[in-house]
């Protein structure tokens, strides 16, 4: 096994042993139970009412769209907790030095830690979203139009948060980094609210700020894009300014590359 693969395996094992992973799994199980009960009640009511296909799609979209925010939130929580202490946190606890003095190099070490965190949090999002889609389909006989697009948007959003947390870990202590990344996550949500406010007040200045936030924190745009993939009649483009469509896809790639380059440079220059 190569040193890179060794670090990935070690990081994945470490993730599985963290208490946060168990907490997220328990919360996921509780949410799935509640979601199933809710879906049964709502779709049951729709059957009694004699709702048609369009109403079924509207209910399914609403339910799944709401649940996707929970997927995003729990996926983000997992991603943050898996990466908050990758560099400075582990260095201060004495865990990093024995690994860094091995010949695999800091770039590979950081890349392997990112790959492991991305695999864990991305895998969690894929599995959680797939279960929700299957549950919704089984209970309500409704499936979203573009399952892959919706899932990819969610995974992309979580990867962006994961990379932000990894970059933050090269500068901040684990606690400070966790707080900072959750604040950025909140700022992404606030940007969407700000955009709605800007539209209501017809304020160019507020619109400009919310669009800038949409570009700087693209996980929100990715989440909204994945919501937009649920059906043909769902328009999420006006919820938040900033990138959308192909521009969003390309910007996400560039954004991730910039974060990775920033984290690498900071880690290479950092005294341990």
């Amino acid at each position: 096994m190569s040193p890179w693969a060794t670090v990935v395996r070690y990081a994945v094992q470490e993730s599985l042993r963290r208490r946060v992973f168990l907490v997220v799994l328990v919360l996921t199980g509780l949410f799935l139970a509640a979601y199933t009960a809710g879906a049964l009640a709502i779709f049951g009511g729709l059957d009694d009412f004699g709702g048609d296909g369009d109403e079924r799609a509207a209910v399914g979209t609403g339910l799944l769209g709401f649940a996707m925010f929970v997927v995003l939130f729990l996926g983000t929580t997992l991603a943050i907790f898996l990466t908050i202490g990758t560099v400075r946190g582990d260095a201060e606890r004495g865990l990093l030095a024995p690994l860094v003095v091995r010949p695999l190099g800091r770039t590979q070490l950081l890349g392997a830690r990112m790959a492991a965190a991305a695999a864990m949090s991305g895998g969690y999002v894929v599995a959680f979203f797939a279960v929700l889609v299957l549950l919704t389909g089984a209970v309500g006989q409704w499936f979203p139009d573009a399952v892959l697009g919706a899932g990819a948007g969610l995974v992309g959003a979580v990867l962006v948060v994961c990379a932000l947390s990894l970059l933050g870990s090269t500068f901040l202590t684990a606690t400070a980094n966790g707080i900072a990344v959750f604040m950025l996550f909140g700022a992404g949500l606030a940007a969407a609210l700000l955009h709605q406010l800007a539209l209501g007040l017809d304020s160019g200045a507020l619109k400009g700020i919310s669009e800038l936030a949409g570009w700087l924190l693209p996980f929100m745009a990715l989440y909204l894009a994945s919501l937009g993939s649920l059906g043909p009649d769902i328009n999420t483009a006006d919820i938040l300014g900033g990138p959308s469509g192909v521009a969003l896809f390309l910007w996400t790639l560039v954004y991730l590359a910039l974060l990775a380059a920033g984290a690498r440079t900071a880690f290479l220059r950092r005294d341990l």
Partner: protein
Amino acid sequence: MSEVLECHGLSKRYGAKLALESVDLTLARGELVGLLGPNGAGKTTLMKSACGLLRPSAGSVSVCGAPAGSGEALSRLGYLAELFRFPGWLTAEEVIELHQGLSRSRGGAAERAALLDLVGLGEARGVKVDAMSKGMQQRLGIAQALVGTPHLLLLDEPASALDPAGRRAVRELLLSLRQRGISVLLNSHLLSDVELVCDRVVLLVGGRVVRSGRPADLVRPRGVEVETASGVHTYEGSTREDAPRIVSELVAGGEQVYGVRVLASTLEDVYLESVGA
């Protein structure tokens, strides 16, 4: 002898504080060098610079001819940090296996068993780090540093948590490593251990090398002590060469001599004198 570690004009500055100032240090193959100095003297900074954890502010460090921190340099050294921790959920054997993977060691299970036996953890290979005492973790740290048979071993306070038997085991281990041609830079406050095993001692104070040499060369003669029937007489300033003359004069003067001892300062005396304590 070829140089395994070379520091030339090595300086390291943390903001306004100069932690190391133009340090020149070399380690030959199989040489065991003790690094001494008070807290804050720059010993750990020197160690960390040698293994690439710190970037020098000036000067250079190389390991086996390769720049410190490069893949080539790191593949030839083993390092035990002063403050280190292994993941508590790994067993002793898994820690060694992890480091075998990181260093591309092909030693496999045989190397793991040999290293754990070497540090006295053969029976504890399945014990999780969380369940280990501080001393066991320190011995595991030494075993980890030896993965892949490094050319240079950097040990930062390797015996600080060990009991007397453990310290003796580490001393014997260091001597056996020297016989195998492995160079060791040992940072320790345990002067007696350093005096017993090290070929050379480097004394750092305020980031500068203030004394360097073989322990025997650093100590100074303090006199000759002679035990006679009338009591113990100390001849301060006399050397080993003066002893026969002193004894002859005492015997000629009718004294009965029962014992003669040449007095020399200890490494501790040299250390305390150098640090101004």
